[in-house]
Protein backbone atom coordinates (compact mmCIF):
# COMPACT_ATOMS: atom_id res chain seq x y z
CA UNK A 1 0.00 0.00 0.00
CA UNK A 2 1.18 3.50 -0.78
CA UNK A 3 2.27 5.80 2.00
CA UNK A 4 -0.63 7.95 3.23
CA UNK A 5 -0.38 11.39 1.69
CA UNK A 6 0.34 14.11 4.18
CA UNK A 7 -1.23 17.45 3.41
CA UNK A 8 -0.56 20.70 5.14
CA UNK A 9 -4.02 21.06 6.60
CA UNK A 10 -3.64 17.63 8.11
CA UNK A 11 -0.51 18.70 9.96
CA UNK A 12 -1.49 18.88 13.60
CA UNK A 13 -1.48 22.15 15.39
CA UNK A 14 1.90 22.81 16.86
CA UNK A 15 1.97 23.55 20.57
CA UNK A 16 4.82 23.98 22.99
CA UNK A 17 6.93 26.03 25.31
CA UNK A 18 8.94 28.89 23.87
CA UNK A 19 12.74 28.95 23.90
CA UNK A 20 14.28 32.22 22.73
CA UNK A 21 17.50 33.09 20.91
CA UNK A 22 18.72 36.37 19.41
CA UNK A 23 19.65 37.73 15.97
CA UNK A 24 22.03 36.17 13.40
CA UNK A 25 22.07 32.68 14.90
CA UNK A 26 24.34 30.86 12.47
CA UNK A 27 24.30 27.19 11.52
CA UNK A 28 27.75 26.67 13.11
CA UNK A 29 26.17 27.53 16.46
CA UNK A 30 23.09 25.40 15.74
CA UNK A 31 25.35 22.41 15.05
CA UNK A 32 29.12 22.83 15.25
CA UNK A 33 31.23 21.35 12.44
CA UNK A 34 33.02 19.11 14.95
CA UNK A 35 29.87 16.95 14.87
CA UNK A 36 29.49 16.91 11.09
CA UNK A 37 31.47 13.71 10.73
CA UNK A 38 28.12 12.02 11.37
CA UNK A 39 24.65 12.77 10.04
CA UNK A 40 22.18 10.80 12.20
CA UNK A 41 19.44 13.06 13.55
CA UNK A 42 19.58 11.69 17.10
CA UNK A 43 23.34 12.29 17.34
CA UNK A 44 23.11 15.83 15.94
CA UNK A 45 20.22 16.65 18.31
CA UNK A 46 22.42 15.87 21.34
CA UNK A 47 24.68 18.77 20.34
CA UNK A 48 22.05 21.18 19.04
CA UNK A 49 22.82 24.80 20.02
CA UNK A 50 25.19 23.54 22.70
CA UNK A 51 27.73 26.37 22.44
CA UNK A 52 24.93 28.87 23.07
CA UNK A 53 22.59 27.01 25.43
CA UNK A 54 24.48 24.14 27.09
CA UNK A 55 22.38 21.03 27.86
CA UNK A 56 19.47 22.40 25.85
CA UNK A 57 18.54 19.04 24.41
CA UNK A 58 17.95 17.57 27.88
CA UNK A 59 15.52 20.38 28.68
CA UNK A 60 13.52 20.62 25.46
CA UNK A 61 10.24 18.69 25.43
CA UNK A 62 8.79 17.38 22.17
CA UNK A 63 6.69 20.11 20.60
CA UNK A 64 8.58 23.04 22.08
CA UNK A 65 9.00 26.08 19.85
CA UNK A 66 12.17 28.04 19.12
CA UNK A 67 11.61 31.78 18.70
CA UNK A 68 14.48 33.72 17.13
CA UNK A 69 15.37 37.21 15.95
CA UNK A 70 16.63 38.32 12.55
CA UNK A 71 18.49 36.19 9.99
CA UNK A 72 18.09 32.85 11.79
CA UNK A 73 20.22 30.09 10.25
CA UNK A 74 22.77 32.26 8.46
CA UNK A 75 26.09 30.85 7.26
CA UNK A 76 26.79 27.29 6.21
CA UNK A 77 24.33 25.34 4.06
CA UNK A 78 24.52 22.29 6.35
CA UNK A 79 21.14 20.60 6.38
CA UNK A 80 22.33 19.06 9.63
CA UNK A 81 21.14 22.31 11.31
CA UNK A 82 17.37 21.97 10.74
CA UNK A 83 17.74 18.19 11.23
CA UNK A 84 19.34 18.79 14.67
CA UNK A 85 16.54 21.17 15.69
CA UNK A 86 13.85 18.76 14.50
CA UNK A 87 15.34 15.78 16.32
CA UNK A 88 15.94 17.90 19.44
CA UNK A 89 12.14 18.08 19.66
CA UNK A 90 11.30 21.51 18.29
CA UNK A 91 7.99 21.40 16.44
CA UNK A 92 8.77 24.60 14.55
CA UNK A 93 10.92 27.73 14.47
CA UNK A 94 9.39 31.20 14.49
CA UNK A 95 11.69 34.09 13.61
CA UNK A 96 11.78 37.72 12.66
CA UNK A 97 13.50 36.55 9.46
CA UNK A 98 15.40 33.52 8.15
CA UNK A 99 18.56 33.10 6.11
CA UNK A 100 17.55 31.67 2.75
CA UNK A 101 19.41 28.36 2.60
CA UNK A 102 18.26 27.43 6.10
CA UNK A 103 14.66 28.33 5.25
CA UNK A 104 14.67 26.13 2.18
CA UNK A 105 16.39 23.25 4.00
CA UNK A 106 13.87 23.38 6.84
CA UNK A 107 10.92 23.17 4.44
CA UNK A 108 12.66 20.36 2.57
CA UNK A 109 13.10 18.22 5.68
CA UNK A 110 9.67 19.04 7.09
CA UNK A 111 10.50 21.47 9.89
CA UNK A 112 7.91 24.27 9.77
CA UNK A 113 9.54 27.71 9.79
CA UNK A 114 7.33 30.72 10.28
CA UNK A 115 8.20 34.36 9.68
CA UNK A 116 6.50 36.39 12.41
CA UNK A 117 8.39 39.55 13.49
CA UNK A 118 5.73 40.42 16.09
CA UNK A 119 6.15 37.11 17.86
CA UNK A 120 9.94 37.45 17.79
CA UNK A 121 9.63 40.81 19.53
CA UNK A 122 6.66 40.39 21.88
CA UNK A 123 6.65 36.81 23.10
CA UNK A 124 8.82 36.04 26.16
CA UNK A 125 10.59 32.75 26.88
CA UNK A 126 8.58 30.13 28.72
CA UNK A 127 5.06 30.90 27.45
CA UNK A 128 3.05 28.29 25.57
CA UNK A 129 2.34 29.02 21.92
CA UNK A 130 -0.05 27.28 19.58
CA UNK A 131 0.59 27.53 15.84
CA UNK A 132 -1.71 26.65 12.93
CA UNK A 133 0.71 25.88 10.10
CA UNK A 134 -1.97 26.14 7.42
CA UNK A 135 -3.06 29.68 8.31
CA UNK A 136 -0.02 31.08 10.08
CA UNK A 137 -2.15 32.01 13.10
CA UNK A 138 -0.13 31.94 16.33
CA UNK A 139 -1.78 32.06 19.77
CA UNK A 140 -0.14 32.78 23.11
CA UNK A 141 -2.09 30.44 25.39
CA UNK A 142 -0.86 32.18 28.54
CA UNK A 143 -2.60 35.48 27.74
CA UNK A 144 -4.82 34.75 24.75
CA UNK A 145 -2.98 37.14 22.43
CA UNK A 146 -3.15 36.21 18.73
CA UNK A 147 -0.46 36.92 16.13
CA UNK A 148 -0.31 36.33 12.41
CA UNK A 149 2.73 34.73 10.84
CA UNK A 150 3.57 35.04 7.15
CA UNK A 151 1.61 32.63 4.97
CA UNK A 152 3.61 30.22 2.81
CA UNK A 153 3.72 31.11 -0.92
CA UNK A 154 1.57 28.77 -3.06
CA UNK A 155 4.58 27.07 -4.61
CA UNK A 156 5.95 26.11 -1.22
CA UNK A 157 2.54 24.97 -0.03
CA UNK A 158 2.63 22.43 -2.82
CA UNK A 159 5.91 21.02 -1.52
CA UNK A 160 4.69 21.06 2.07
CA UNK A 161 1.43 19.41 1.07
CA UNK A 162 3.42 16.56 -0.41
CA UNK A 163 5.20 16.22 2.92
CA UNK A 164 8.54 17.74 1.91
CA UNK A 165 10.79 17.90 -1.12
CA UNK A 166 11.53 14.19 -1.49
CA UNK A 167 7.90 12.95 -1.46
CA UNK A 168 7.09 15.84 -3.79
CA UNK A 169 9.72 14.73 -6.30
CA UNK A 170 8.72 11.07 -5.89
CA UNK A 171 5.22 12.02 -6.92
CA UNK A 172 6.56 13.82 -9.98
CA UNK A 173 8.84 10.91 -10.91
CA UNK A 174 5.98 8.41 -10.56
CA UNK A 175 3.75 10.59 -12.67
CA UNK A 176 6.39 10.64 -15.40
CA UNK A 177 6.70 6.83 -15.29
CA UNK A 178 2.99 6.34 -15.94
Amino acid sequence: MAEPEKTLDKVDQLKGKVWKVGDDIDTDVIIAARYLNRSEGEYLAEHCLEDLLPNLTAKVKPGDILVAGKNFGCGSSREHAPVALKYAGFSCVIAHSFARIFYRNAINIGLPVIVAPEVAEAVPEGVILEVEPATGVIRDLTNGQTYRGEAFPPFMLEILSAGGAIPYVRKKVNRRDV
Partner: protein
Amino acid sequence: MKRVQVTEGISARCGENILLERYLERGSDEQVGMTITEKILAAHAGLEEVSAGALLTAKLDLVLANDITGPLAIKEFAKIGVEKVFDQDKVVLIPDHFAPAKDIPSAQQCFEVKCFAQKQQLKHYYEVGRNGIEHCFLPEQGLVVPGDVVIGADSHTCTYGGLGAFSTGVGSTDLAVGMAQGELWFRVPETMKVVLNGKPKNPWVSGKDYILAVIGKIGVDGARYMAMEFTGEAISALSMDGRLTMANMAIEAGAKNGIIAPDEKTVEYVKGRAQRPWKLYQSDADAVYHAVVELDVTDLQPQVAYPHLPSNVKDVAVAAAAKLPIDQVVIGSCTNGRWEDLWTAAQILKNKKVHPDVRVIVIPGTQDIYLQAVREGLVEIFIQAGAVVSTPTCGPCLGGYMGILAKGERAVSTTNRNFIGRMGHPESEIYLTNPAVAAASAVLGRIAAPEEVV
Protein backbone atom coordinates in the same frame (compact mmCIF):
# COMPACT_ATOMS: atom_id res chain seq x y z
CA MET B 1 13.00 53.87 -27.24
CA LYS B 2 12.66 55.72 -24.00
CA ARG B 3 15.23 54.63 -21.45
CA VAL B 4 14.47 55.01 -17.80
CA GLN B 5 17.57 55.29 -15.67
CA VAL B 6 17.04 53.52 -12.38
CA THR B 7 20.44 53.05 -10.91
CA GLU B 8 20.45 55.35 -7.95
CA GLY B 9 18.41 56.25 -4.93
CA ILE B 10 15.96 53.40 -5.14
CA SER B 11 17.09 51.41 -2.16
CA ALA B 12 13.84 51.89 -0.29
CA ARG B 13 11.67 50.98 -3.25
CA CYS B 14 10.58 47.60 -4.34
CA GLY B 15 11.67 46.27 -7.71
CA GLU B 16 8.15 45.29 -8.66
CA ASN B 17 6.89 48.85 -8.25
CA ILE B 18 9.55 50.11 -10.58
CA LEU B 19 8.60 47.46 -13.09
CA LEU B 20 4.98 48.53 -12.88
CA GLU B 21 5.87 52.20 -13.26
CA ARG B 22 7.87 51.40 -16.35
CA TYR B 23 5.08 49.40 -17.91
CA LEU B 24 2.78 52.36 -17.37
CA GLU B 25 5.29 54.72 -18.88
CA ARG B 26 6.08 52.68 -21.98
CA GLY B 27 3.13 50.45 -22.57
CA SER B 28 3.12 46.82 -21.59
CA ASP B 29 4.30 45.47 -24.95
CA GLU B 30 7.79 46.86 -24.53
CA GLN B 31 10.42 44.66 -22.92
CA VAL B 32 11.96 45.70 -19.66
CA GLY B 33 15.69 45.28 -19.08
CA MET B 34 17.01 42.36 -17.08
CA THR B 35 19.97 41.80 -14.81
CA ILE B 36 22.59 39.10 -15.51
CA THR B 37 21.04 36.89 -12.84
CA GLU B 38 17.57 37.25 -14.38
CA LYS B 39 18.90 36.53 -17.87
CA ILE B 40 20.75 33.38 -16.86
CA LEU B 41 17.78 32.03 -14.90
CA ALA B 42 15.37 32.88 -17.73
CA ALA B 43 17.58 31.13 -20.29
CA HIS B 44 17.74 28.00 -18.13
CA ALA B 45 13.98 28.01 -17.61
CA GLY B 46 13.17 28.40 -21.31
CA LEU B 47 11.70 31.85 -20.74
CA GLU B 48 12.37 35.06 -22.63
CA GLU B 49 11.79 37.37 -19.75
CA VAL B 50 11.64 37.04 -15.98
CA SER B 51 11.62 39.53 -13.16
CA ALA B 52 12.43 39.37 -9.47
CA GLY B 53 9.96 37.38 -7.42
CA ALA B 54 9.05 34.96 -10.20
CA LEU B 55 9.17 31.25 -9.41
CA LEU B 56 10.64 29.04 -12.07
CA THR B 57 12.29 25.70 -12.67
CA ALA B 58 15.78 25.98 -14.11
CA LYS B 59 17.97 23.39 -15.82
CA LEU B 60 21.20 22.73 -13.95
CA ASP B 61 24.59 22.73 -15.67
CA LEU B 62 26.39 21.34 -12.64
CA VAL B 63 25.50 19.85 -9.28
CA LEU B 64 28.17 19.75 -6.57
CA ALA B 65 28.59 18.10 -3.17
CA ASN B 66 31.41 17.34 -0.75
CA ASP B 67 32.22 14.81 1.98
CA ILE B 68 30.01 16.59 4.58
CA THR B 69 26.89 17.31 2.56
CA GLY B 70 27.29 14.46 0.05
CA PRO B 71 26.39 11.55 2.35
CA LEU B 72 23.14 13.21 3.45
CA ALA B 73 22.31 14.01 -0.20
CA ILE B 74 23.05 10.42 -1.23
CA LYS B 75 20.71 9.17 1.51
CA GLU B 76 17.91 11.47 0.28
CA PHE B 77 18.64 10.58 -3.36
CA ALA B 78 18.00 6.92 -2.53
CA LYS B 79 14.51 7.80 -1.29
CA ILE B 80 13.47 9.49 -4.54
CA GLY B 81 13.21 6.24 -6.43
CA VAL B 82 15.40 6.87 -9.47
CA GLU B 83 18.34 4.59 -10.19
CA LYS B 84 20.71 6.97 -11.94
CA VAL B 85 21.69 10.62 -11.61
CA PHE B 86 20.30 12.85 -14.37
CA ASP B 87 23.69 13.14 -16.09
CA GLN B 88 26.90 11.37 -15.10
CA ASP B 89 28.95 14.27 -16.49
CA LYS B 90 27.20 16.97 -14.49
CA VAL B 91 27.49 15.74 -10.93
CA VAL B 92 30.73 16.74 -9.18
CA LEU B 93 31.77 15.12 -5.89
CA ILE B 94 34.83 16.33 -4.03
CA PRO B 95 36.07 15.14 -0.65
CA ASP B 96 37.65 18.34 0.70
CA HIS B 97 36.16 19.29 4.07
CA PHE B 98 37.50 16.60 6.39
CA ALA B 99 39.77 15.02 3.77
CA PRO B 100 42.29 13.43 3.86
CA ALA B 101 40.01 11.93 6.49
CA LYS B 102 40.57 13.26 10.00
CA ASP B 103 38.94 10.36 11.86
CA ILE B 104 36.98 7.16 11.29
CA PRO B 105 33.51 8.71 10.89
CA SER B 106 34.97 11.24 8.40
CA ALA B 107 36.69 8.41 6.52
CA GLN B 108 33.33 6.66 6.38
CA GLN B 109 31.71 9.76 4.89
CA CYS B 110 34.46 10.15 2.27
CA PHE B 111 34.12 6.46 1.42
CA GLU B 112 30.34 6.76 0.98
CA VAL B 113 30.86 9.60 -1.49
CA LYS B 114 33.48 7.61 -3.39
CA CYS B 115 31.29 4.48 -3.56
CA PHE B 116 28.36 6.51 -4.85
CA ALA B 117 30.58 8.07 -7.53
CA GLN B 118 31.80 4.60 -8.58
CA LYS B 119 28.31 3.13 -8.64
CA GLN B 120 26.95 6.05 -10.65
CA GLN B 121 30.06 6.10 -12.86
CA LEU B 122 30.47 9.83 -12.34
CA LYS B 123 32.98 11.55 -14.56
CA HIS B 124 33.79 14.23 -11.99
CA TYR B 125 34.76 12.52 -8.76
CA TYR B 126 38.14 13.82 -7.63
CA GLU B 127 40.14 11.94 -5.02
CA VAL B 128 42.60 13.56 -2.62
CA GLY B 129 45.82 14.25 -4.52
CA ARG B 130 43.98 15.18 -7.72
CA ASN B 131 41.57 17.73 -6.27
CA GLY B 132 41.43 20.83 -4.13
CA ILE B 133 39.01 22.94 -2.15
CA GLU B 134 35.90 22.65 -4.32
CA HIS B 135 35.41 26.38 -5.01
CA CYS B 136 39.07 26.85 -5.95
CA PHE B 137 39.12 23.65 -7.99
CA LEU B 138 35.99 23.97 -10.15
CA PRO B 139 36.82 27.32 -11.79
CA GLU B 140 40.51 26.37 -12.14
CA GLN B 141 39.66 23.16 -13.99
CA GLY B 142 37.05 24.83 -16.19
CA LEU B 143 34.29 22.64 -14.75
CA VAL B 144 32.15 25.73 -14.33
CA VAL B 145 31.89 28.38 -17.05
CA PRO B 146 30.26 31.80 -17.51
CA GLY B 147 26.50 31.65 -18.01
CA ASP B 148 26.05 28.40 -16.06
CA VAL B 149 23.43 27.61 -13.45
CA VAL B 150 25.16 25.67 -10.68
CA ILE B 151 23.93 24.39 -7.34
CA GLY B 152 26.22 23.07 -4.66
CA ALA B 153 25.56 21.65 -1.23
CA ASP B 154 27.91 24.20 0.25
CA SER B 155 27.05 27.80 1.00
CA HIS B 156 30.15 29.15 -0.75
CA THR B 157 28.99 27.78 -4.10
CA CYS B 158 28.19 31.43 -4.85
CA THR B 159 31.92 31.78 -5.69
CA TYR B 160 31.36 31.05 -9.41
CA GLY B 161 29.51 34.35 -9.80
CA GLY B 162 33.05 35.71 -10.15
CA LEU B 163 33.04 34.11 -13.61
CA GLY B 164 29.59 35.42 -14.52
CA ALA B 165 27.70 32.24 -13.65
CA PHE B 166 24.60 31.92 -11.48
CA SER B 167 25.60 29.65 -8.64
CA THR B 168 24.07 29.18 -5.23
CA GLY B 169 24.36 27.05 -2.13
CA VAL B 170 21.64 24.56 -1.26
CA GLY B 171 21.08 21.86 1.34
CA SER B 172 21.47 18.14 0.85
CA THR B 173 17.81 17.50 -0.02
CA ASP B 174 17.79 20.11 -2.79
CA LEU B 175 21.06 18.61 -3.98
CA ALA B 176 19.47 15.16 -4.09
CA VAL B 177 16.57 16.54 -6.12
CA GLY B 178 19.06 18.25 -8.44
CA MET B 179 21.02 15.01 -8.91
CA ALA B 180 17.83 13.14 -9.74
CA GLN B 181 16.13 15.64 -12.00
CA GLY B 182 18.76 18.00 -13.39
CA GLU B 183 16.53 20.91 -12.55
CA LEU B 184 15.41 22.77 -9.46
CA TRP B 185 12.88 25.44 -8.59
CA PHE B 186 14.11 28.93 -7.80
CA ARG B 187 12.62 32.24 -6.82
CA VAL B 188 14.26 34.86 -9.03
CA PRO B 189 16.10 37.08 -6.56
CA GLU B 190 15.95 40.85 -6.43
CA THR B 191 19.33 42.27 -7.37
CA MET B 192 21.41 44.63 -5.26
CA LYS B 193 23.85 46.54 -7.40
CA VAL B 194 27.13 47.12 -5.60
CA VAL B 195 29.17 49.80 -7.34
CA LEU B 196 32.82 50.09 -6.37
CA ASN B 197 34.42 53.28 -7.63
CA GLY B 198 38.00 54.51 -7.49
CA LYS B 199 41.43 52.93 -7.37
CA PRO B 200 42.80 52.06 -3.93
CA LYS B 201 45.89 54.03 -2.92
CA ASN B 202 46.92 51.30 -0.51
CA PRO B 203 48.69 48.57 -2.55
CA TRP B 204 47.64 45.83 -0.08
CA VAL B 205 43.92 46.38 -0.54
CA SER B 206 42.35 43.37 -2.29
CA GLY B 207 39.01 41.86 -3.25
CA LYS B 208 38.76 40.55 0.32
CA ASP B 209 38.83 44.10 1.66
CA TYR B 210 36.19 45.22 -0.84
CA ILE B 211 33.79 42.50 0.18
CA LEU B 212 34.47 42.93 3.92
CA ALA B 213 33.86 46.68 3.57
CA VAL B 214 30.58 46.03 1.74
CA ILE B 215 29.41 43.51 4.36
CA GLY B 216 30.43 45.99 7.07
CA LYS B 217 28.27 48.57 5.39
CA ILE B 218 25.12 46.50 4.74
CA GLY B 219 25.34 43.87 7.51
CA VAL B 220 25.23 40.07 7.51
CA ASP B 221 21.62 40.12 6.31
CA GLY B 222 21.96 43.23 4.16
CA ALA B 223 21.50 41.30 0.92
CA ARG B 224 19.36 38.49 2.33
CA TYR B 225 17.70 36.49 -0.50
CA MET B 226 19.18 38.87 -3.10
CA ALA B 227 21.64 38.68 -5.95
CA MET B 228 24.64 40.93 -5.33
CA GLU B 229 25.93 42.29 -8.62
CA PHE B 230 29.38 43.80 -8.24
CA THR B 231 30.32 46.46 -10.74
CA GLY B 232 32.33 49.65 -11.17
CA GLU B 233 35.89 50.57 -12.11
CA ALA B 234 37.41 48.83 -9.08
CA ILE B 235 35.79 45.56 -10.17
CA SER B 236 36.98 45.97 -13.77
CA ALA B 237 40.52 46.45 -12.44
CA LEU B 238 40.27 43.46 -10.09
CA SER B 239 41.99 40.14 -10.89
CA MET B 240 39.99 36.97 -11.44
CA ASP B 241 41.23 35.62 -8.10
CA GLY B 242 39.99 38.79 -6.41
CA ARG B 243 36.62 38.54 -8.16
CA LEU B 244 36.16 34.94 -7.05
CA THR B 245 36.95 36.04 -3.46
CA MET B 246 34.26 38.72 -3.62
CA ALA B 247 31.55 36.48 -5.05
CA ASN B 248 32.56 33.80 -2.53
CA MET B 249 31.59 36.00 0.41
CA ALA B 250 28.25 37.23 -0.98
CA ILE B 251 26.65 34.59 1.27
CA GLU B 252 28.16 36.42 4.25
CA ALA B 253 25.73 39.27 3.49
CA GLY B 254 22.91 36.73 3.19
CA ALA B 255 22.84 36.83 -0.62
CA LYS B 256 21.58 34.02 -2.82
CA ASN B 257 24.34 34.65 -5.33
CA GLY B 258 27.09 37.12 -6.08
CA ILE B 259 27.79 37.96 -9.70
CA ILE B 260 30.25 39.95 -11.79
CA ALA B 261 29.67 40.68 -15.47
CA PRO B 262 32.22 38.76 -17.54
CA ASP B 263 34.77 40.82 -19.48
CA GLU B 264 38.09 40.27 -21.34
CA LYS B 265 39.74 39.12 -18.10
CA THR B 266 37.04 36.51 -17.63
CA VAL B 267 37.43 35.23 -21.18
CA GLU B 268 41.19 35.16 -20.78
CA TYR B 269 40.80 33.08 -17.60
CA VAL B 270 38.24 30.71 -19.07
CA LYS B 271 40.09 30.11 -22.34
CA GLY B 272 42.10 26.93 -22.20
CA ARG B 273 40.30 25.75 -19.06
CA ALA B 274 36.64 25.52 -20.05
CA GLN B 275 35.43 21.98 -20.57
CA ARG B 276 32.22 23.25 -22.19
CA PRO B 277 31.14 26.23 -24.30
CA TRP B 278 30.34 29.33 -22.27
CA LYS B 279 27.96 32.22 -22.65
CA LEU B 280 28.56 35.79 -21.58
CA TYR B 281 25.65 37.72 -20.10
CA GLN B 282 25.52 41.41 -19.26
CA SER B 283 22.87 43.35 -17.40
CA ASP B 284 20.77 45.68 -19.53
CA ALA B 285 21.23 49.41 -18.97
CA ASP B 286 17.60 49.58 -17.87
CA ALA B 287 17.68 46.50 -15.64
CA VAL B 288 15.70 46.73 -12.42
CA TYR B 289 17.71 46.94 -9.21
CA HIS B 290 16.13 46.57 -5.81
CA ALA B 291 18.91 48.55 -4.19
CA VAL B 292 22.15 50.26 -5.09
CA VAL B 293 25.12 50.43 -2.76
CA GLU B 294 28.09 52.58 -3.70
CA LEU B 295 31.54 52.53 -2.20
CA ASP B 296 34.58 54.60 -3.11
CA VAL B 297 37.66 52.45 -2.53
CA THR B 298 40.24 55.21 -3.10
CA ASP B 299 41.02 55.58 0.60
CA LEU B 300 39.99 52.09 1.66
CA GLN B 301 42.37 50.39 4.10
CA PRO B 302 42.74 46.64 4.57
CA GLN B 303 39.78 45.48 6.65
CA VAL B 304 39.70 43.29 9.75
CA ALA B 305 36.44 41.58 10.74
CA TYR B 306 36.35 41.22 14.52
CA PRO B 307 34.60 38.35 16.30
CA HIS B 308 31.91 37.13 15.91
CA LEU B 309 30.42 38.43 12.65
CA PRO B 310 31.99 39.15 9.23
CA SER B 311 30.22 42.54 9.31
CA ASN B 312 32.13 43.63 12.42
CA VAL B 313 34.88 45.36 10.42
CA LYS B 314 37.53 47.91 11.38
CA ASP B 315 40.46 49.42 9.48
CA VAL B 316 43.68 47.47 9.98
CA ALA B 317 45.28 50.51 11.65
CA VAL B 318 42.66 50.40 14.41
CA ALA B 319 43.15 46.67 14.90
CA ALA B 320 46.95 47.04 14.90
CA ALA B 321 46.78 49.77 17.53
CA ALA B 322 44.90 47.41 19.85
CA LYS B 323 48.05 45.20 19.94
CA LEU B 324 46.10 42.01 20.61
CA PRO B 325 48.48 39.04 20.72
CA ILE B 326 47.60 36.17 18.37
CA ASP B 327 48.21 32.41 18.49
CA GLN B 328 47.46 31.20 14.98
CA VAL B 329 47.35 32.43 11.40
CA VAL B 330 45.56 30.57 8.61
CA ILE B 331 46.23 31.49 4.99
CA GLY B 332 44.00 29.56 2.63
CA SER B 333 40.35 28.43 2.11
CA CYS B 334 37.85 28.79 -0.73
CA THR B 335 37.98 32.53 -0.03
CA ASN B 336 41.74 33.14 -0.14
CA GLY B 337 43.54 29.93 -1.12
CA ARG B 338 44.30 30.92 -4.72
CA TRP B 339 47.63 31.68 -6.37
CA GLU B 340 47.45 35.45 -5.92
CA ASP B 341 46.70 34.98 -2.20
CA LEU B 342 49.69 32.72 -1.60
CA TRP B 343 51.93 34.92 -3.71
CA THR B 344 50.96 38.01 -1.72
CA ALA B 345 51.56 36.26 1.61
CA ALA B 346 54.96 35.09 0.34
CA GLN B 347 56.00 38.65 -0.57
CA ILE B 348 55.58 39.55 3.08
CA LEU B 349 57.05 36.40 4.64
CA LYS B 350 60.12 36.36 2.38
CA ASN B 351 63.27 36.54 4.53
CA LYS B 352 61.13 37.02 7.64
CA LYS B 353 60.42 34.79 10.62
CA VAL B 354 57.07 33.95 12.09
CA HIS B 355 56.71 35.38 15.61
CA PRO B 356 57.79 32.79 18.26
CA ASP B 357 54.31 32.70 19.85
CA VAL B 358 52.48 32.07 16.59
CA ARG B 359 51.82 29.03 14.38
CA VAL B 360 51.08 29.67 10.72
CA ILE B 361 49.18 27.23 8.53
CA VAL B 362 49.30 27.82 4.78
CA ILE B 363 46.82 25.82 2.69
CA PRO B 364 47.01 26.01 -1.10
CA GLY B 365 43.51 25.80 -2.58
CA THR B 366 44.29 23.09 -5.14
CA GLN B 367 47.00 20.64 -6.11
CA ASP B 368 47.86 22.81 -9.14
CA ILE B 369 48.33 25.87 -6.94
CA TYR B 370 50.36 23.74 -4.51
CA LEU B 371 52.64 22.55 -7.32
CA GLN B 372 53.08 26.06 -8.66
CA ALA B 373 53.91 27.23 -5.13
CA VAL B 374 56.57 24.52 -4.91
CA ARG B 375 58.02 25.34 -8.34
CA GLU B 376 58.13 29.09 -7.84
CA GLY B 377 59.69 28.91 -4.40
CA LEU B 378 56.69 29.99 -2.32
CA VAL B 379 56.66 26.82 -0.25
CA GLU B 380 60.32 27.34 0.59
CA ILE B 381 59.60 30.92 1.67
CA PHE B 382 56.80 29.69 3.95
CA ILE B 383 58.86 26.91 5.48
CA GLN B 384 61.92 29.11 5.96
CA ALA B 385 59.69 31.62 7.72
CA GLY B 386 58.46 28.93 10.08
CA ALA B 387 55.03 28.14 8.66
CA VAL B 388 53.54 24.74 7.89
CA VAL B 389 52.15 24.06 4.42
CA SER B 390 49.22 21.65 4.24
CA THR B 391 47.63 19.74 1.39
CA PRO B 392 44.42 21.37 0.13
CA THR B 393 41.54 21.04 2.62
CA CYS B 394 38.78 23.13 4.17
CA GLY B 395 40.02 21.75 7.55
CA PRO B 396 40.54 24.65 9.96
CA CYS B 397 38.11 27.12 8.35
CA LEU B 398 35.14 25.28 9.81
CA GLY B 399 36.87 23.86 12.87
CA GLY B 400 37.32 20.46 11.28
CA TYR B 401 41.02 19.77 11.78
CA MET B 402 44.50 21.08 10.86
CA GLY B 403 44.39 24.06 13.21
CA ILE B 404 41.65 23.88 15.83
CA LEU B 405 41.69 26.71 18.38
CA ALA B 406 41.89 26.14 22.14
CA LYS B 407 39.83 28.03 24.69
CA GLY B 408 41.08 31.61 24.79
CA GLU B 409 43.17 31.37 21.61
CA ARG B 410 43.03 34.11 19.02
CA ALA B 411 43.49 33.59 15.26
CA VAL B 412 43.94 35.79 12.23
CA SER B 413 42.49 34.01 9.24
CA THR B 414 41.93 34.64 5.55
CA THR B 415 38.78 32.50 5.71
CA ASN B 416 35.19 33.70 5.55
CA ARG B 417 33.46 33.27 8.91
CA ASN B 418 34.31 34.27 12.46
CA PHE B 419 31.20 32.92 14.16
CA ILE B 420 31.33 31.67 17.76
CA GLY B 421 33.25 28.37 17.82
CA ARG B 422 33.73 28.29 14.05
CA MET B 423 37.41 27.27 14.29
CA GLY B 424 37.30 25.43 17.56
CA HIS B 425 36.50 26.26 21.17
CA PRO B 426 33.47 28.56 21.63
CA GLU B 427 35.70 30.88 23.65
CA SER B 428 38.29 31.30 20.88
CA GLU B 429 38.41 34.33 18.59
CA ILE B 430 38.77 34.72 14.81
CA TYR B 431 39.78 37.92 13.00
CA LEU B 432 39.17 37.80 9.24
CA THR B 433 41.65 39.58 6.98
CA ASN B 434 43.26 39.49 3.55
CA PRO B 435 46.43 37.37 3.03
CA ALA B 436 48.81 40.36 3.32
CA VAL B 437 47.48 41.37 6.74
CA ALA B 438 47.50 37.72 7.85
CA ALA B 439 51.16 37.33 6.84
CA ALA B 440 52.21 40.61 8.48
CA SER B 441 50.35 39.60 11.65
CA ALA B 442 52.21 36.27 11.64
CA VAL B 443 55.52 38.14 11.76
CA LEU B 444 54.60 40.62 14.48
CA GLY B 445 52.51 38.25 16.61
CA ARG B 446 49.59 40.67 16.61
CA ILE B 447 47.25 42.08 14.00
CA ALA B 448 49.49 44.19 11.81
CA ALA B 449 49.34 46.31 8.66
CA PRO B 450 51.54 44.96 5.82
CA GLU B 451 53.58 48.18 5.67
CA GLU B 452 54.73 47.58 9.26
CA VAL B 453 56.64 44.53 8.01
CA VAL B 454 57.83 45.21 4.45
